[in-house]
C-alpha cells in the first residue's frame, strides 16, 4: 500500500502525468525539459531567425559601414530594377528550365531504374547493382563535375571518343563551350549523381505491393511488362505523386554547385541561376541590397509554391507534408 502511494507521489513529482494541473505546475514539473530546450531555442533564433532581419537590406541602399537601421531607405527600387533587368529575367528562365529538366530526368531515371532493379531475381546481383548505384550520391559535386569535364573533354574525353568511334561525329565537340548543350549536361550530371539514391524510396514502395496481385496477374497470363504497367506502377503512384508535389515546391532551387562549377564565360547566358546571381552581385560586387532582393524573391516564391503543394497534396487525398 505504502509503496504504491510513494510511486504515485513520485510520478506526480517528476511530472509524468503532467497534463493535469495548471500551467505553472506543469512548467515546474518539466523544468529539466525546459532547461534542455532553452539552448536550442536560442540557437534557432540566432542562426535561423535573426538573419531574416537582414531582409530589410533589400529596401535600403545598404552600406556595410553603417548599422542596419541607419541606412538610406529606397522602397522597392531594387525589386523594380531586378524585374526590368534583362539579365535577371534570363536568370529566372535558366533556373526554371534547369530545375524542370532535372526534375523530369530525375523522376524518369529513378523510377525506371527502380522498376528494372525490381525485376532482378538474383538477390546478390541486385544488392551489388544497388550498392554501385548509390556511390555517386556520396561523391561531392567537385568530384562529379571533375568527372563530367573529363568525360566531355575534346582531347581525351570518352564521350567524344565514343561518338567518333561510331562515326556519329567527325571531329570532337567542345560541349562545355556551346550554350545549347549546357542544360542537358547539367541534367545528366544530376542523373549520374542521383539516380541510384533517388530509386531507394521507390524500391521501398514497390516492396509494399502485395505479391498476390502479381500471382493473380500471372494466372491471367500477363507478361512482365504488363505486370509492371498494371501493378507496379499503380502501386507506387502515391509515392511518385507526393514526391512530385514536394519537388514542385523546390522549382526555384535548381541547385547552384553544378552550374557554378561547370559554367564558364562562354555559356554564362544559360548557366546563371538565381543563386549564382546572388553570389555574384552580393559577394562578388558587394551589392548586398540587390542580392538580398533577389534572394527574397526566391524565398517568397518558394514558400508560396510549398504552401500550394501542401494543399494540393491534401486535396488529392494524400497526407499533408507538414
Amino acid at each position, binding site marked *: 500500500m505504502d509503496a504504491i502511494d510513494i510511486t504515485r507521489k*513520485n510520478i506526480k513529482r*517528476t511530472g*509524468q502525468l*503532467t*497534463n493535469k494541473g495548471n*500551467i505553472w505546475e506543469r*512548467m515546474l514539473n*518539466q523544468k*529539466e*525539459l525546459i532547461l*534542455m*530546450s532553452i539552448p*536550442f*531555442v536560442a*540557437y*534557432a533564433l540566432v*542562426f*535561423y531567425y535573426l*538573419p*531574416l*532581419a*537582414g*531582409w530589410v*537590406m533589400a529596401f535600403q541602399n545598404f552600406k556595410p559601414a553603417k548599422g542596419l537601421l541607419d541606412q538610406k531607405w529606397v522602397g522597392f527600387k531594387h525589386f523594380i530594377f531586378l524585374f526590368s533587368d534583362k539579365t535577371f529575367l534570363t536568370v529566372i528562365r535558366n533556373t526554371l528550365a534547369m530545375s524542370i529538366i532535372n526534375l523530369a530526368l530525375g523522376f524518369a531515371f529513378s523510377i525506371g*531504374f527502380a522498376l*528494372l532493379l525490381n525485376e532482378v531475381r538474383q538477390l546478390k546481383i541486385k544488392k551489388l*547493382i*544497388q*550498392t*554501385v*548505384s*548509390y*556511390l555517386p550520391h556520396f*561523391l561531392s*559535386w*567537385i*568530384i562529379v563535375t*571533375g*568527372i563530367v*569535364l573529363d568525360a566531355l573533354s575534346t*582531347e581525351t574525353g*570518352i564521350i567524344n571518343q565514343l561518338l567518333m568511334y561510331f562515326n556519329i561525329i567527325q571531329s570532337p565537340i567542345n560541349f562545355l563551350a556551346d550554350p545549347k548543350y549546357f542544360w542537358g549536361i547539367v541534367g545528366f550530371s544530376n542523373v*549520374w549523381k542521383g539516380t*541510384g539514391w533517388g530509386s*531507394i524510396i521507390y524500391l521501398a514502395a514497390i516492396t509494399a505491393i502485395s505479391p498476390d496481385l502479381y500471382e493473380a496477374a500471372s494466372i491471367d*497470363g500477363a*507478361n*512482365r511488362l504488363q505486370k509492371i504497367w498494371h501493378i507496379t506502377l499503380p502501386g507506387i503512384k*502515391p*509515392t511518385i505523386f507526393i514526391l512530385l508535389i514536394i519537388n514542385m515546391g523546390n522549382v526555384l532551387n535548381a541547385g547552384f554547385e553544378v552550374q557554378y*562549377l561547370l559554367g564558364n564565360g562562354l555559356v554564362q547566358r544559360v548557366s546563371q541561376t538565381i543563386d549564382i546571381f*546572388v553570389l555574384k552581385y*552580393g559577394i562578388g560586387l558587394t551589392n548586398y541590397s540587390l*542580392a*538580398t532582393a533577389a*534572394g527574397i524573391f526566391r*524565398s517568397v516564391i518558394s514558400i508560396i509554391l*510549398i504552401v500550394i503543394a501542401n494543399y494540393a497534396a491534401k486535396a488529392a487525398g494524400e*497526407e499533408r507534408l*507538414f
Partner: protein
Amino acid sequence: MNNKSVFKIKVDEILFDVIKWIFLVLFVLATIYPIINTLAVSLNEGADALKGGIFLLPRKFTLENYFLVFKNKNLVQASIITVSRTVIATVLQLFLTAMLSYVLCRKDFIFRKFVTILYVLTMYVNAGLIPNFLLIKHLGLTNNFWVYIVPGMISAFNMIVIRTFMNGLPDSLAESAKVDGASEFKIFINIILPLCKPVLATVALFIAVYQWNSWFDTMLYNAFDNSLTTLQYELMKLLSAVTNQGASAEAMKNSGNMVTPATIRAAATIITAFPIVCLYPFLQRYFVAGLTIGGVKE
C-alpha cells in the same frame, strides 16, 4: 493454354530479360567507368596521359602523382582540416540533434509544439545567402575553423528522422526510469541514446558525408586562410587550374613532364573519394532504412 501462347510468353520473357540486362549493365558501366578511369589516369605518367587513350588501366605506371599530393603542404593541411571538421561536427551535431529530438518526442512537454514549429519552419524559410553571410561575419566566424561546425549545427530534417525513431520506442522505458528518480538528461544519455543506435548511424552518415564534401563554406568564409581550407576546396582549385590550362595542353604534351595538373587532380580526386567509397557499403542498410523513415512521412 495451348503451346503457341506458352511459347509466346517464353519469348516475351527472354526478350524482357535481355533488354533489362542491357540497361542495367549500361547503368553500372556508366557509374563505375569514370571512377576507374580517374584511378587509371592518377596512376599514369602526366605527359603520357595527355595523349589520351587511357581507359581502364594506366599505360605508363607511376606513383609520382600521389607522392606529389602527399608532399604538397596545402593538401596535407587541408586533409587534417577536413578530417577534423568531419569528426567534430558529426559527434557534436549528432549529440545535440538527438537531445533536441528527445525533448520533442516527449508528448507531455509543454513547449513541444512551439519548439517543433520553430525548427520545422527552418526547413522552408531561409534568409538567404547575404543575410547569413553578414551574420557569420558579425559573429567573427570568418577565417575561423568553427564556421564549419557552428552554423547548421542542428538540422530540422535530421531532428525529424531521429524523433520519428524515438517515437517508436515504448514510453514505459523512460517512465520506469523516472519513477526511480532519474533525471531527464540521464534518461536521455543512459536509456534512450543507446536504443537509437540504428537511426544515429544513419544520421551520422548524412552529417559526415555533408561535412566531407563541403567546399562552399570554405570558399565563402575561409578562402584567404590557407591553413583552414578543406580538401574539396583544394580539389576545386586544382580543377580550375586544369580547365584554365586547356589551351596550353599542347605545349605540355611535348615538355616531357612526369606529372601534369590533370594527373595530380586525378590523384587528389581518388584520395578525396577513397574514405567514403570504402565506408558507405557497410552503412547501406542503415541509410536505406533512415531514408524511408524521414524521406516521406507516409
